[in-house]
C-alpha cells in the first residue's frame, strides 16, 4: 500500500446528521472550540465575580459582613486557579487551538476527532467537579492557588476536608482532558498540513499554540503526580509532602516528607504554565498586528525561534518562584541566570511587534487597539518580571503586592487583552456576523485604562512591603493610612473593569442576533481560514478541494501587487499586479 499524506486521504468525516451530533456530541473542531470557549468564558466570569468580592474586602475591610476570613481565602484560591487553568489554558488551547489549527494549516479537522470531543467533555467534567466544591461542607479550598502542603490539607485552612480533594481531582481530570486535546493538536500540526504548508510557512498563531501544547504535555504530568501524591497524603495517610508536624497542638504522626518537593513539582509545571498561556498569546497577537498594520510580521524566523527558545528555557527557570522558599540558597545563582536569559528572546518578540508597526499602514480597528494595548501591558509586566527574576531584588518584593501586580499585568491583563483582540478579530469568521464597533471600543478603553488603574498603584504597595494574601492589614508600624485609601481606589477601578466586561458579553449576544452579515475576509487577511468557501466555514472546512499553499502567511503590501494582501492559497500566476509592475515574485523566503 502506498503512503497517502493525511491531507490527501479521502476522510471519513463522521458527518453529523442530528442536532445532537452536530452541536452536543460534536466531533467538529469548530463546534468543540466554541464549546470549550463558552465554558471557559463562563468560569472566567465566576472567577471575575470572586475577584470583585475579594477587592470589596480589601478596599473596605470593615464593611461587608458576608466576607469572613475563610471566605476571603476561598475566593483568592478559586479566583487564581480558575483564571490560570480553567479560563486561560482552556480558552487559548481548547478554544483558539481547536478553532485555528485545522483552518490555518488547511486541514478538514483534527486528526483524532473523537478524542477531541472527549477532551471537551472531560474538561467540562473537571469544571463541574471544581464548581461542586462551592457546595460541599466546608466549601472550596482556601489554600491559595499554589495549594502548598502541609497547609492545604490541614484543618487550619478553609476547605481542608472536601474542598481540597475536589480541587485535586478536578485538576487531574483537567489534565486528562488537556492531554487528549494536546496530543491531537501536536499530531495535527505535524501530520495534517495541506500541500505547500511547510512548518516555516505556518502562521505564528499555530506556532504559539503548537509549542505551548508541547510545553503542556511535558509540564502537566508534574502537576498530575503532585495532585495524586497530595490526595494520598490527605486521604490515606501517606507522607510524601508531610514531615513531622504538630498541628494546632495535635501530633499528626507524619514523618519524612518534604513540603519543598511539592513546590519543585508545582513550579516545574507552574512556570511552563506561564508560557502555555503566553505563547499562544504571542502567536495570536502577532497575526492580529501584522494584518491590521497591513505589513508582514517583522522577522518571522526570529519570531518562530524565539517561541521555541522561550519554550525550552521555561523548563529550567522554575525555582525563581522559590528564591525564599527555604531551598538551598545557592540555587539562586543558577535560576536568576536562566531567568534573565529568557528576557532576551522575549525582548526580541517585543521589538519585532513594534517594528511591525513601523512603516506599516495601521488600521486602528478594535482588534488592533487590543493588540496595541497588549504591547503596553506586556512591556510593563515583562519589565517588572526582571525585578522578581533577579534573585536579590526578589528578597524584599517576594510575597508582597508587587508580585500580585506583576503577574496580573503579565499573565492576567496581557493575555486577556490578546484574547479580546483575537475574539474580535475572528468573531466574523466564527459567527459570520460583524460585532458592534462602538461597543468594542468602549470595551477596549474601559478594560485597558481600568486595569492599569488597578495594577500600577498595586506595585507601589509592594514596594512599601504590604504582604499579599492578608484578609485585613490591621495596624502595623510601617503602612500608612493612605495605603488603605489607595486600596479603596483600586477596588473601585476593579469593580468598574469587572462590570464593563458585560459590554463584551452583550456585544457578542447582540451581534450574533442583529449583527451585520460579515464579508468572508473582512480584514483582508492572508492566512487560510479567511479563504474558506463558506462563511462561517462548514463541516469539513474546504468543500471539494483542499487549499494549496504557495507562501507564508504575511504577504502584505507587496510592491507592485494590486491588493495590499496576497492570500497564502493564491497561485503566483494568479496574483494580480498593477500595470507595468512586472510579474509577481515571492521574496519572503529569500534569506
Amino acid at each position, binding site marked *: 500500500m502506498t503512503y497517502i499524506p493525511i491531507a490527501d486521504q479521502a476522510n471519513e468525516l463522521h458527518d453529523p446528521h442530528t442536532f445532537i451530533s452536530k452541536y452536543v456530541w460534536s466531533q467538529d473542531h469548530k463546534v468543540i472550540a466554541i464549546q470549550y470557549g463558552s465554558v471557559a468564558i463562563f468560569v472566567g466570569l465566576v472567577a471575575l465575580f470572586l475577584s470583585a468580592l475579594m477587592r470589596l474586602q480589601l478596599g473596605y475591610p470593615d464593611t461587608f459582613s458576608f466576607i469572613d476570613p475563610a471566605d476571603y481565602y476561598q475566593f483568592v484560591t478559586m479566583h487564581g486557579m480558575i483564571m490560570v487553568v480553567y479560563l486561560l489554558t482552556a480558552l487559548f488551547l481548547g478554544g483558539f487551538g481547536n478553532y485555528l489549527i485545522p483552518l490555518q494549516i488547511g486541514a478538514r479537522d483534527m486528526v483524532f476527532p473523537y478524542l477531541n470531543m472527549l477532551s471537551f467533555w472531560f474538561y467540562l467534567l473537571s469544571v463541574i467537579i471544581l464548581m461542586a466544591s462551592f457546595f460541599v461542607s466546608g466549601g472550596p479550598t482556601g489554600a491559595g492557588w499554589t495549594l502548598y502542603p502541609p497547609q492545604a490539607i490541614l484543618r487550619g485552612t478553609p476547605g481542608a476536608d472536601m474542598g481540597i480533594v475536589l480541587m485535586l481531582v478536578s485538576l487531574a481530570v483537567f489534565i486528562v482532558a488537556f492531554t487528549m486535546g494536546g496530543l491531537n493538536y501536536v499530531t495535527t500540526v505535524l501530520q495534517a498540513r495541506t500541500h505547500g504548508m511547510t512548518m516555516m510557512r505556518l502562521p505564528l498563531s499555530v506556532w504559539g499554540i503548537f509549542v505551548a501544547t508541547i510545553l503542556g504535555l511535558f509540564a502537566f504530568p508534574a502537576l498530575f503526580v503532585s495532585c495524586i501524591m497530595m490526595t494520598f497524603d490527605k486521604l490515606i495517610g501517606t507522607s510524601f509532602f508531610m514531615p513531622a508536624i504538630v498541628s494546632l497542638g495535635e501530633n499528626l504522626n507524619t514523618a519524612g516528607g518534604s513540603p519543598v518537593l511539592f513546590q519543585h513539582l508545582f513550579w516545574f509545571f507552574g512556570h511552563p504554565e506561564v508560557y502555555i498561556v503566553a505563547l499562544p498569546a504571542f502567536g495570536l497577537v502577532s497575526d492580529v498586528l501584522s494584518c491590521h498594520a497591513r505589513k508582514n510580521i517583522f522577522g518571522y524566523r526570529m519570531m518562530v525561534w524565539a517561541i521555541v527558545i522561550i519554550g525550552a528555557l521555561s523548563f529550567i527557570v522554575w525555582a525563581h518562584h522559590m528564591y525564599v522558599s527555604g531551598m538551598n540558597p545557592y540555587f539562586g545563582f543558577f535560576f536568576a541566570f536562566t531567568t534573565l536569559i529568557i528576557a532576551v528572546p522575549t525582548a526580541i518578540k517585543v521589538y519585532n511587534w*513594534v517594528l511591525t508597526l513601523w512603516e506599516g499602514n495601521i488600521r486602528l480597528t478594535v482588534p488592533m487597539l487590543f493588540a496595541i494595548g497588549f504591547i503596553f501591558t506586556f512591556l510593563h509586566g515583562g519589565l517588572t518580571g526582571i525585578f522578581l527574576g533577579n534573585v536579590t531584588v526578589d528578597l524584599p518584593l517576594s510575597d508582597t503586592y508587587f508580585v500580585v501586580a506583576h503577574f496580573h499585568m503579565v499573565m492576567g491583563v496581557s493575555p486577556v487583552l490578546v484574547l479580546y483582540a483575537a475574539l474580535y478579530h475572528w468573531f466574523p469568521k466564527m459567527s459570520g456576523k460583524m460585532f458592534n464597533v462602538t461597543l468594542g471600543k468602549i470595551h477596549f478603553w474601559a478594560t485597558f485604562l481600568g486595569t492599569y488603574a488597578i495594577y500600577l498603584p498595586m506595585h507601589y504597595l509592594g514596594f512599601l512591603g504590604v504582604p499579599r494574601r492578608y484578609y485585613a492589614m490591621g495596624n502595623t508600624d510601617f503602612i500608612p493610612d493612605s495605603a488603605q485609601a489607595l486600596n479603596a481606589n483600586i477596588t473601585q477601578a476593579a469593580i468598574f473593569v469587572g462590570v464593563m466586561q458585560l459590554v463584551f458579553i452583550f456585544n457578542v449576544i447582540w451581534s450574533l442576533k442583529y449583527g451585520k452579515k460579515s464579508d468572508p475576509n473582512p480584514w483582508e487577511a492572508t492566512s487560510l481560514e479567511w479563504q474558506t468557501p463558506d462563511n462561517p466555514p462548514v463541516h469539513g472546512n474546504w468543500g471539494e478541494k483542499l487549499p494549496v499553499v504557495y507562501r507564508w502567511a504575511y504577504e502584505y503590501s507587496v510592491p507592485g501587487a494590486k491588493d495590499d494582501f496576497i492570500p497564502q492559497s493564491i497561485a503566483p500566476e494568479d496574483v494580480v499586479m498593477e500595470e507595468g509592475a512586472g510579474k509577481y515574485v515571492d521574496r519572503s523566503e529569500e534569506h
Partner: protein
Amino acid sequence: MPIIIVLVLLIIATLLFHFLSPWWFTPIASNWTGIDLTIDITFWVTGFVFVGINLFVAYAIYKYRHNKNRRSKYEPENKKLEIWLTSLTAIGVAALLTPGLFVWADFVNVPEDAHEVEVVGQQWQWGYRYPGADGLLGAADASNISAANPFGMDPDDPYGQDDILVSGKDMHLPIDRPVKVLLRSKDVLHDYAVAQFRVKMDMVPGSVSYMWLTPTLEGSYDILCEELCGIGHFVMRGSVVVEDEESYNNWLNSQMTYAELNAQAVGNPQVGQALYAVCAACHGANGEGNEALNAPRLSGLEPWYIKRQINYYKTGVRGGENDVIGMTMSPMAAVLADDAAINNVAAYIETLPESSAPLTVTGDVANGRALYEPTCGVCHSRDGQGIWAVNAPALAGMSDWYLVRQLQNFKSGVRGAHPEDQFGYQMVGMVSALKDDQAINDVVSYINTLR
C-alpha cells in the same frame, strides 16, 4: 488617534506616579543597602526601556496611521538590526543581573562572627530561641512537642538546657552585630519577614532554613508572616526590637532558660484556695460569675490562661485607662504578690466544678455557626474547648455577656492593643471578621449552644 495621546499620557502618568508616590520602601534598618542599590539600577534601566519603547510605539502609530494612498514597506527581516537589538538587550540584561548576583553571594555566605537566633513558627504565632551561655542551640524536633515542651526541645541534650525560650510575639536583637536567623516551623510553611530588614525567608516544617543580616537602626519593627499559612495568616504578627548591646543583654537575662522553665513549681490548689477568697467576692465561691458585678465565670478556664490574664492586670496590659470595667480588676490582681501565688490560684480555679453561666445573649445561631466554625473554631476548637497550643482559651459555657463585651473591646482597641499583649493582637485582627454588633451577638449565641 486617541490611542496615541493616551499612550503618551500613560507614560507621563506612570512617571509622575512613580516620582510622587508616597508609597515607597521603608527606611532600611539593616546592612542590605546593596539590595536597595540593585533596585535603583533596575529602575533606571527598565524605566528607560519602558519610556523608550512606548514612545516609539506612539510615534509609529501616529506616523504610519492608515492612508489609502500609501503602502507599508515590504521588509520580511533585517538581520543587521535584529543582531544589534539582541546584543544590546543581552548587555542590558547582564548589567542588571551582575550586581544582583554579587549581593546574593553576600547573602548566602553568613559571616563567621554572626551569632545565632532561632525563630520558631506555628499557626499563627512566633517563638524565639537564643543559645544560652554555651553559645550553642540544643537539638529540637517537632516530635518532642507537648504542652510542657512547646519548642520541642530534646530533653536529653545537654546543650539545650541553657537555651533561652521566648514564647510571645517580641524578639530582641543587638544593633550592629551580624545575626544568623535560623528558621523552623512546627506545622506549615511560614515566612519570617521584616520590611525594614529587606530580607525574608520561608520556614519549612521538617527542615531548618536560614538568613542573615546586621541590624543597623535602633527601633521596633513588625515581623509579618508572608507565606500563606491558613486562616490566621493575616494575624501572625510579631515584632523585633533592635537595641544597644546593654539593653539587649538585660532583656535576654530576664528571659527563662529551658531548664528554669522545667523547674517551675506546679501550682498548689490548697494554698490557692485561701487566696481565692478575695476573688470569690465577685466571681462567686465556685467561680460561676456574676453579671451584676461585671465578673465573668472563671470555672472551666485553663490555668495558663488565668495566669496570663492576672499578670496582664498586674502589669497594666489589661485594665488600662480605656478599660473602665477592667480597671476594677487591677488592684485585685495586685493582691497576688508573686508568680507562685498566681500559680496557686490558677491551680485552685482548675479544681472548681465546671458550671455553665446563664444565657443572656440572643442572636441568629445559624449565622453565628457559619461565622464561628471556619474562623473562631480553628483556634478555640470546633466545640469551644480551647487549644493550649495556640493559646486560645475555652469559650463553651463562658459568661456570654462577657464574650460580647470582650469582642467589642477587641474591636474598639480597649483590649489587645497594648504592645505587651502577646496574643491579644490576634483577636484584634480576627474580630475584623465580625463587622457589626449583630454579628457579635450571632457568634456568641452559637457559642452558647456549645455546652
